[in-house]
């Protein structure tokens, strides 16, 4: 597993965007904290560690829904939250972009198991 410095700034940016999974404008609170299950964020990088913008990132729940998004100009993506009924072990993160192939997917170890905290997963690709 490659060792990359943790990027607290990006992590905070993700939390600030946590209202992204928000809803209607009339019906009340947007979120249902009781049901916050796994969520993900991370970078898609090339072989040299440079972030890849506009890469497609897929989170696939085994036998269930797929969630497809693209990385930002800074190579960052975020996905979630899934229901807490969903086991993180049943979720596969993958990445793709024309001219690249995925080499590996690295899950950052989290200090403690807190389902409300996003899981950092980095996706590596190389040319070819």
């Amino acid at each position, binding site marked *: 597993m490659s060792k990359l410095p943790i990027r607290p700034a990006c992590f905070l940016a993700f939390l600030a965007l946590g209202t992204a999974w928000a*809803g209607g404008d009339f019906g009340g609170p947007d979120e249902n904290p009781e049901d916050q299950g796994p969520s993900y964020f991370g970078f898609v990088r090339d072989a040299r560690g440079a972030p890849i913008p506009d890469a497609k990132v897929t989170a696939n729940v085994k036998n269930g829904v797929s969630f497809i998004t693209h990385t930002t100009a800074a190579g960052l993506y975020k996905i979630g939250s899934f229901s807490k009924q969903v086991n993180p072990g049943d979720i596969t993160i993958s990445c793709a972009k024309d001219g690249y192939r995925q080499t590996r997917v690295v899950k950052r170890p989290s200090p403690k198991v807190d389902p409300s905290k996003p899981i950092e997963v980095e996706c590596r690709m190389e040319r070819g």
Partner: protein
Amino acid sequence: MLSKFALAAISGALVLFLQLGVDPARAQESGTVLTGRITSAAEGAMEGVLVSARAAGSSITFTVVSDRDGRFGFPAGRLAPGRYALSIRAVGYELDGPSTVEVAAQKTARVDIALRKTRDLAAQLSNTEWFTSMPGTAEQKRPLIECMSCHTFERIARSRYGADEMYSVLKRMTTYANNSTMQRVQRRKVDRRFDEDSFRKLAAYLATVNLSKGPSWSYELKTLPRPTGRATRAVITEYDLPRKTIAPHDVRTGADGMVWYSNFVENYLGRLDPKTGSHAEYAYPVIKPGAPLGSLALEADNDGNLWLAAMFQTGLVKFDVRTRTFRIFRLSPEANTDASQQSMVMPRQSQIDGKVWTNEVSTQSIMRLDLVSGKFELIDPFKYLAKGNHSPYGLAADAANNLYFMDFGDEAIGRVDAKTGQSTLYPTPTKRSRPRRTMMDAQGRVWFAEFAANKVAMFDPGRDAFKEWEVPTPHTYPYDVFVDKNGELWSGSMSSDRILRFDPERGTSVEYLLPRQTNVRRVFVDDSTTPVTFWVGSNHGASIISLQALE
């Protein structure tokens, strides 16, 4: 479970209206039949004033727009000889005295129109102009986008409720069905959820922008500029429907040139003959007694037959255009709760696999009707997501009858695979965009309105990629889009009284102002005419409107 209902043909109710006034065959071949110039003391010659002409006893109003010299002209072929009442729309102004004009055969009538400043500007503001005028943060104003589905902001602005009374009013609003208009208020069987804190905040805010503190508003009433240039080159035809209670929601034309519409608050399918102005209604029976009446989505299948999403009446209603009979597809009793609601239907590609897509609003789910068994299958595309405000809304189907749906509650486009039933969700680049209605173009691209983001957008399934464009006027809140045969996008909203025509290739746009306050829902373009004809219903105004650009 498939009940068949032979149409109670409304031969008696087939309302023929307006033979007077429109008779293209007898009108002049070319040029203009009625011209004039518009001036005011304040501005001199006025550009962008909408001039409307309506023959005595007629239900059809024709509208043109003055050019930069203040001149207007009704093209020949629109107005038959007769006496016409004239009206105008130019925010801040009104006619300086009544205006009628006699149009004779074989010659051009001329009338010059003088305008004076209005003394009641508030009565002329669109919802967009109220949004712009009211002080407050975006967060304070945001919940108001829900209000305009039933009434204008003028009603809120003129109210005298303090915060506590306004809170009671807001609570009362949760008891009404979303298919309510001022002419026909309908109660829900199950009240809407609401959050007390949000409602208290909203009530307190509204009490600062209404007339609870005094006889006039504490802020300036701001108006949008009048149309200029290209936006003045259009002819608008408005067909009044025979009852004020009719709330046309989705409008579309058939191969026979007829205009069909769904009625949001009554169990009728409406039909208008734009050539003669004759109108007919086809009644379908009450499906669920005690539940709000009316339907929302109106779509055509591959055979040209029409499908209605029956809202709180529940289930789907198919109309055979040839035999003029209805067939009702009911939910099973165990799936049909007091909150059940089908707002959408997508039968467009049902010939592929015998399946018609719809939604179940109460469970935030997709449903799929099997035409052979008549059974609905429930598909929950959000099953694996954290619970939230999801709401599958606008639907489109590709050539293999795979479904694309808008998550109106949130910010994603979804796809349901027709073969596997598996869902894929694609979040829009803009957060909290609340995608609303949609259409698929000939290339399989999904065009849609981002209601809460004030944007129109395109999703290309081939590349899993989005494009978004901000609409020109802030606080428009587009409801729907339609891409015509020339690749131009048309859009409208419940707020701005303007129809957007946008060229995504060039990035150019023009906004046509409509003659009256017009709560716009589904937009439709008839590609069979040259130029194309834009069609829309006035959901609160009981009329059908067509617009043709003069360039």
